[in-house]
C-alpha cells in the first residue's frame, strides 16, 4: 500500500491556499465501514456470478496445477477464463473457507479500487479532488452493482489493478523512468491475469487518454519529445503484450484452438434501455445512480478544462458503449463481438473514468458551499450505494433461495456419481451444487468454456435455465436429453415442473424426490456410466504448470515491485503546475 501511495504522480498546488485532501486511511475506513458488514453477511452469494467464481476456485483448491475440470460440460478447461482472483480465493479458502475467502478477496478489491482511483485521479486533478474521487469510488453504484448483483469478481479485480498501473504508465512514457516501466508492466500483466477483457478495452478507454495527457503535458520537457514518447509507448505495449502472452499462454492457446463460434446468447445489457425500460433501470439507473444528475456537469467540466478532455472522451466512449443497444455505437465499434460481450462492465469503466472529473466538481462544491454541499452530496452518494446494494434484493438473480446440500448428498451416495446429471430450474445454484458434489454434469455456467455442440448450436444459456431462453434454450435441452446415453447422462434433477412433460414423453421416469417433493429426480434406463470425454481439449501438463504459476506469480510480483521505493525526482515533482492551474481555472467556471 505504501508503495502504491508513494508511486502516485505528485501535483503541485496553486498559489491559492487549498484545503487538504481526505486522508487515504479515512477513505479505506469508509470502504470497510460500508462494505465489510455486507460482505460478512455474504450478500454477494446471491449475485449472478459469485458462485461461478467460487466453483472455479474450488477446483483450484484441489487441482492447482490441473485446469481440466470434469464437473461441467463433460469436462472443460479452466484455462478458458483468467484465473487470478479465483486462485486467490482458493488460496485464502484454506484458512477461512471458500465463501469467506471470496468475500475477503472482494473486500481487498474494493480497497484497492479506492487507492487506484486516487492514483489515477491524481493524473488529472488535484490531490483533494482525487481524494473525493477515491471516496466516491466507495459509494459507486456500478461497483456495488457488479459486486452484489452481478458478482463479477474478475472485472472488479482487474480494474483497480489497471488503475494503479496507469500512473506508472504515465511516468514511464513521459519521463522514461525504468522503475515505472517495471511497475506498470507487472501491474498490467497482473490485471490481465485477473480479467483479459479489462486490459483489452481498458487500453482504449483508459490508456489512450493517459497517453494523450502525456502529449498535452509535455511542454518543453526534453525527455518527453514526440519520438521519445512514441518509442516508450511502443516499448511498453510490446513488452506488456509479450508478458501477457506468456502469462496467459494456455488461455490464448485455448482461444485459438477453440474460438468462440457458438450462437450468441441473448443478454439484456444489449437491450435499448428506452424501449426496454426495465433493463434501463437495471443497467443504467442502478449502476449510475446519482451520477446521472452529474452527467451534464461532468461533460461541461471535462470539455472546459483542456487537460480533462482526453478523459472526457474516454468516458464518453465507454458511456455510449455501456448503453448497450440504446445507441448503435457498440454495434458499429464491436461488430459481431457486440453479440458476445455484456455491457454492464462498460458502464462500470465509464463511471471509473468519470470519477476524477466528479472529484474535481465535488471538491469545488465542498470548498465553496461547505456543509450545504456536503450534506446533499453525502445523501446522493449513500442513496446511490444503497440502491445498488439493495438491487440484488429487489431484482434477485435467483428468486428462489433453496439449499442444494440434499441434492449434493443424493448425488454423492450409492454410486449416483458414476453418471452425469443435469439440473433444471436451479438458476445459479448450479455452481453451488457443483462445488458440493463429486458428480459431473453436462451443463455449466461458463459460456466461453462450453464446447458440446448441444450447448453451442442453439443460442441458449445454461440448460438449467432453458425455459428463459425460449425456443433456443429448449431446443438445446432436448438435444442434450436426446444424447443422454452418449454423455452418460442418467439423472435430471428438477426444481421446476415446467420441464416434467418433456421428461415424461422423452423416456425419463421420476425415481426420487427431495426437500418435501420440491425437487424431483428423474432417471433414464440403459444409460451407460459416464466415461471421460473431450480428451483432445485437455491441456497438457506443462500448460497446467504455467497456469498454476504465472498468473498468480504475476500478482505476487506486482506486490513485490510496488515495494520498490520511488526515487525523488525534482523534475517530476515540480513539473506539473499546468495541471493545478487548469484545475484552478476550471474550478471558477462552475
Amino acid at each position, binding site marked *: 500500500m505504501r508503495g502504491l501511495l508513494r508511486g502516485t504522480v505528485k501535483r503541485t498546488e496553486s498559489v491559492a491556499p487549498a484545503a487538504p485532501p481526505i486522508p487515504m486511511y479515512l477513505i479505506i475506513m469508509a470502504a470497510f465501514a460500508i462494505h465489510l458488514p455486507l460482505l460478512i453477511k455474504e450478500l454477494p452469494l446471491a449475485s449472478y456470478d459469485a458462485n461461478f467464481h467460487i466453483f472455479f476456485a474450488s477446483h483450484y483448491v484441489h487441482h492447482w496445477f490441473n485446469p481440466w475440470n470434469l464437473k461441467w460440460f463433460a469436462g472443460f478447461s479452466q484455462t478458458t477464463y483468467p484465473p487470478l482472483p479465483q486462485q486467490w480465493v482458493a488460496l485464502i479458502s484454506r484458512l477461512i473457507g471458500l465463501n469467506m475467502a471470496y468475500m475477503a478477496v472482494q473486500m481487498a478489491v474494493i480497497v484497492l479500487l479506492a487507492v487506484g482511483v486516487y492514483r489515477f485521479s491524481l493524473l488529472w486533478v488535484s490531490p483533494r479532488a482525487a481524494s473525493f474521487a477515491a471516496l466516491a469510488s466507495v459509494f459507486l453504484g456500478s461497483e456495488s452493482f457488479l459486486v452484489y448483483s452481478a458478482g463479477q469478481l474478475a472485472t472488479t479485480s482487474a480494474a483497480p489493478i489497471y488503475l494503479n498501473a496507469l500512473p506508472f504508465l504515465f511516468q514511464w512514457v513521459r519521463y522514461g523512468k525504468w522503475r515505472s516501466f517495471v511497475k506498470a508492466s507487472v501491474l498490467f500483466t497482473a490485471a490481465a491475469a485477473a480479467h483479459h477483457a479489462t486490459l483489452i478495452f481498458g487500453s482504449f478507454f483508459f490508456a489512450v487518454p493517459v497517453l494523450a495527457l502525456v502529449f498535452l503535458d509535455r511542454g518543453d520537457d526534453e525527455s518527453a519529445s514526440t519520438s521519445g514518447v512514441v518509442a516508450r509507448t511502443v516499448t511498453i505495449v510490446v513488452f506488456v503484450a509479450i508478458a501477457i502472452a506468456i502469462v496467459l499462454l494456455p488461455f490464448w492457446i485455448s482461444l485459438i484452438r477453440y474460438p468462440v463460434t457458438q450462437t450468441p446468447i*441473448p443478454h*439484456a445489457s*444489449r*437491450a*435499448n434501455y*428506452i*424501449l*426496454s425500460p426495465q*433493463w434501463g433501470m437495471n443497467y443504467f439507473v442502478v449502476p449510475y445512480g446519482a451520477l446521472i444528475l452529474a452527467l*451534464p456537469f461532468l*461533460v*461541461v467540466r*471535462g*470539455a*472546459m*478544462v*483542456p487537460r480533462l*478532455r482526453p478523459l*472526457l472522451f474516454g468516458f*464518453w466512449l465507454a*458511456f*455510449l458503449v455501456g*448503453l*448497450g*443497444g*440504446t*445507441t*448503435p*455505437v457498440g*454495434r458499429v465499434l464491436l461488430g459481431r463481438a*457486440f*453479440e458476445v460481450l455484456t455491457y454492464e462492465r462498460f458502464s462500470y469503466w465509464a463511471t471509473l473514468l468519470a470519477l476524477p472529473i466528479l472529484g474535481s466538481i465535488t471538491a469545488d462544491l465542498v470548498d465553496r458551499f461547505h456543509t450545504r454541499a456536503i450534506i446533499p452530496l453525502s445523501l446522493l452518494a449513500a442513496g446511490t450505494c444503497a440502491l445498488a446494494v439493495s438491487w440484488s434484493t429487489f431484482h434477485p438473480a435467483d428468486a428462489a433461495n433453496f439449499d442444494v446440500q440434499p441434492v449434493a448428498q443424493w448425488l454423492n451416495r450409492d454410486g449416483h456419481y458414476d453418471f452425469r446429471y443435469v439440473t433444471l430450474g436451479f438458476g445459479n445454484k448450479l455452481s453451488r451444487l457443483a462445488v458440493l458434489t463429486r458428480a459431473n454434469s453436462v451443463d455449466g455456467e461458463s459460456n466461453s468454456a462450453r464446447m458440446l455442440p448441444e450447448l453451442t448450436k442453439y443460442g441458449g444459456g445454461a440448460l438449467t435455465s432453458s*425455459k428463459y431462453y*425460449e*425456443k433456443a434454450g*429448449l431446443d438445446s435441452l*432436448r438435444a442434450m*436429453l*436426446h444424447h443422454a*446415453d*452418449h454423455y452418460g447422462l442418467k439423472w435430471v434433477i428438477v426444481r421446476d*415442473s*415446467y*420441464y*416434467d*412433460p*418433456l421428461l*415424461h*414423453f*422423452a*423416456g425419463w*421416469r*421420476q*425415481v*426420487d424426490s427431495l426437500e418435501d417433493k420440491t425437487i424431483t429426480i428423474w*432417471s*433414464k*434406463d*440403459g444409460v451407460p456410466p459416464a466415461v471421460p470425454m473431450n480428451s483432445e481439449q485437455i491441456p497438457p501438463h506443462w500448460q497446467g504448470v504455467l497456469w498454476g504459476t504465472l498468473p498468480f506469480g504475476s500478482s505476487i510480483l506486482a506486490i513485490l515491485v510496488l515495494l520498490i521505493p520511488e526515487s525523488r525526482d525534482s523534475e517530476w515533482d515540480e513539473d506539473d503546475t499546468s495541471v493545478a492551474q487548469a484545475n484552478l481555472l476550471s474550478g471558477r*467556471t462552475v
Partner: protein
Amino acid sequence: MAKGILIAVSIGIATVLLIVIGTIWPVSTAVFFAGGPGLGGSASTPIAASRRLANEIHQHALAKAYSSLGNKAQFTEQEFVSDLTGSTLSLRTYATLDTYEVRPLHESANEAEIALRMHWSTVVGTFEETRDLHLVKNGDHWVVDWPLVKKPVVPPQVFAVNYLRWDVIYRGAGDDWGSQDVDAPHVRIIDMHPVNRAEGVVVLGELLNEDVVPAYVSVRATLLAKNGSVLASEDSFDKISHTLLPKQVTPFLIRFPGVDISQIASIRMDPISVLVSASADPVIEVQNQKFNGPPAASLNGQLSNQSGQIVNIAHVLTTFYDKNGQLVWVAGQYIDRALLPQTPVDFHIPVPADLAKNIANERTVVASYRSGSSD
C-alpha cells in the same frame, strides 16, 4: 472557453442523436428484448394492426391485447386469456409465441380478413396455430375482431370407472430405482424398417410388450458400417409411447441425421424394458380418423378422454401401413389443449407427400401426461 463549450454541446447533441437513432432504428438484439419487430407500431393498416396484436401476444401483454380488440364486448378478458393459454394446465399454459406470419386474405375499404399463423414454442417442441382475423376500420385505424374458440362446457355427471391397474412393490424405501429383483418384462420388436430421407436415415418400427405386466420401454438403434464400425447410435426419445400395458404395441421412430442408407451394413436394435406401476386409465379414444391423400397428406381425427380426469398433455403417435400391412411411416403430434373428460379435441398429423400414396391404413396410439402423476 468557446472551444470547451463547443465540445460540451457537441457531445450532448451527439449523445442525444445517437440515442434517437438507436431507438428509432434499434439493433436486432434491442428489438428482440423490446418484444420483436413492429413493437408499438401503428394500426393504420390491417397488416400493421394484426402485427401489433401478435406482438402483444408475444410479450404476454394479454390485457393490452384484449383492450385493443374490436369485439371485446363479446367475451371477457379471462376468456381471451384462456383461449390463448388454455383454461387448464396444458402445453399452451407455458407456451411462448416464437414467430408469426400474417397473410392478407381479403381487404376492402372498411373490412379485411387476415390469416395469423402463430408458431408457439413449448417444452416438448413447437406447434402451429392459424387464426383468421376479421378487421374493421375504425376512424383512421383498424381493430381486430378476435375469433374466440368457445370452450365446451360438459354437464356435471358421475360415471363409474373400471380399469386395470398394476402396482409394483419394491424391496424397500432405500432401493435404487432400476435395481429390481424381478426380470424385465419381455418386449419384442415386431417390425423394423429403415427409410432413407433427405435429412438422413429414419428407422421405423413397432415394439410389443408380450409380457403380462406393464413395461416402461425405449428403443435404441445402432447403425453399423460394412467394416463393423458404429456409424451412429440414437434412441427413440419421444417418438414412442414409453409405457406399454400387457400386449400393447407402440410404434417408434429413430432419426439419424446426415447418414445415408448406402453407408449402413446392418442395424442393431436394443429394446429396453423395466417393470413399472401402470394403469389403463385414462382411456383416450381415437375418433373420426380420416386420412387425406396427397398433396397435403395428413391424418385428421379427434381424441376423446373417456375417463373422469383431465389429461394435461396428449401425444398422438400413428403408424401408417401400405396395403400389404408393411410399415410405411410413423408420425406424431402433441395436443396443445388439455383433454377434458368427454370433450373431443381435434388432431392433425401431416404425412410426407411422397409416402402418402403408399398408405392404405393406419393405427393410432396416445401417450398421456397428467400433472402431478408420476405414472
